[in-house]
């Protein structure tokens, strides 16, 4: 049976997706939330076991809508580069085709394996990204998938993106607890069933991004010269029921090129990154847009943080249209953090706290957008790509 929440004020069209993306997090019991025309009512269903929670869930939906919309500042998103023409007439959803070819397998929500053709494609993307990194004399680095809770606390990630965190724990060092766990643990079909008291506290999380490691590496230091590095890393962002195919993964690969130095150094490189990214997407024969954007901040601080990010033009996204759905998928982003990480990690330059910036390419998304636009048959892919696979 469907329930509904009446909102205190209409949700503006430009915030409709932001609201819907946040509704899976209002309660474990909610499913299929929909914002009705006019933006003043959300309908939803309740999972088994949560049938009596309709009023509670409706209240939370209303609260989220108020927080999202109060202090909202309508803005204009700028386009820095674009190419409108799709490279082919292919319009199918490539997921089932790739699955039939043995090129993708879903292990679970947000967890996909890739086959040889898509691996070759992502390796080609990485080759091009590393060539891009060389333009900045960026040194290669490697970081762990685990990241300390202290790092994410230091840069306020814990507070700004709590819904996407992936906490890591292990069993406590206690022989009796380990014996009891080994004796009683079982799988209920989806999750482990065990005594939660046997779990440790959280010292580490799965890293949501690559660049935080580098800022931690440079903590409490004074740079004698600007630094550029590059690293490929596994990244993890929990997105609840928003997880969808290769479009939105829980566990994905991201190549970053990261800059730390004075503001003019970072901003100059950001301009170059826009040009090089556009060139790369042109070379891949893809339709795309590079536009200003905002991050999906936690709803309690969304209005202020997104307005700041938009006003100062701190984030650009590389968007590629998916012909099968009409959605513009972010396959990468270029971020300027001003001196936020320089202050957070006490990284100094001669001019004060270091400024930082980075570009990140999400390889699974880029691969999806590529095959969605060109088709899954490599005979129809650009020669520049095929010749390098």
């Amino acid at each position, binding site marked *: 049976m469907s329930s509904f929440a009446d909102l205190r004020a209409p949700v503006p069209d430009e915030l409709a997706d932001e609201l819907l993306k946040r509704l899976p997090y209002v309660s474990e019991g909610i499913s299929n939330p929909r914002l009705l025309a006019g933006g003043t009512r959300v309908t939803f269903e309740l999972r088994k076991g949560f049938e009596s929670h309709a009023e509670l869930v409706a209240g939370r939906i209303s609260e989220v809508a108020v927080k999202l919309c109060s202090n909202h500042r309508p803005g204009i998103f700028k386009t820095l580069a674009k190419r409108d023409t799709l490279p082919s007439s292919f319009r199918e959803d490539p997921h089932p085709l790739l699955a039939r070819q043995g090129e993708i397998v879903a292990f679970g929500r947000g967890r996909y394996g890739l086959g040889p053709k898509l691996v070759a494609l992502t390796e080609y993307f990485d080759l091009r990204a590393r060539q891009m990194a060389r333009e900045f004399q960026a040194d290669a680095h490697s970081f762990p998938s685990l990241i300390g809770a202290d790092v994410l606390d230091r840069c306020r990630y814990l507070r700004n993106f709590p819904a996407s965190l992936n906490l890591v724990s292990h069993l406590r060092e206690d022989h009796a607890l380990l014996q009891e766990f080994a004796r009683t643990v079982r799988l209920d079909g989806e999750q482990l069933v065990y005594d939660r008291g046997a779990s440790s506290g959280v010292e580490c999380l799965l890293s949501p991004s690559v660049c935080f490691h580098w800022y931690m590496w440079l903590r409490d230091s004074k740079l004698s010269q600007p630094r550029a590095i590059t690293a490929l890393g596994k990244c993890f962002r929990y997105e609840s029921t928003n997880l969808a195919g290769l479009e939105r993964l829980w566990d994905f690969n991201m190549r970053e090129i990261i800059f730390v130095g004075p503001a003019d150094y970072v901003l100059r490189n950001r301009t170059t990154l826009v040009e090089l990214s556009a060139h790369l997407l042109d070379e891949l024969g893809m339709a795309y847009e590079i536009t200003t954007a905002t991050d999906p901040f936690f709803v309690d601080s969304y209005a202020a943080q997104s307005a700041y990010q938009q006003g100062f033009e701190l984030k650009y996204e590389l968007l590629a249209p998916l012909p099968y759905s009409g959605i513009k998928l972010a396959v990468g982003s270029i971020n300027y953090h001003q*001196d*936020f990480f320089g202050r957070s990690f006490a990284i100094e330059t001669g001019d004060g706290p270091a400024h930082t910036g980075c570009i990140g390419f999400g390889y699974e998304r880029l691969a999806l957008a590529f095959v969605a636009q060109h088709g899954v048959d490599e005979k129809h892919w650009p020669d520049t790509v095929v010749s390098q696979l």
Partner: protein
Amino acid sequence: MTTSPERTTEQRIQEAISRALGIKTPDSSTPLRMGSIPGWDSMGHMSVVMEIEREFNVRFPPYRLPELVDVPSIAKTLQTSV
């Protein structure tokens, strides 16, 4: 632009900035500028902006936010926003 015979626009801006950042209102010779006083960094900027908006009952669009970096620039932006 002055709405009170006792307090100039600049004084009201200074007081709003002080409230937003939780600092003592400085005298007019102390430069209040983003990045040069404790708390007025990227995190504190929106607190300053929202306190200015409450004081003057205005709402700045995002593209105006980078202009609001000190008392004279805020006063100037207010003149063009009201």
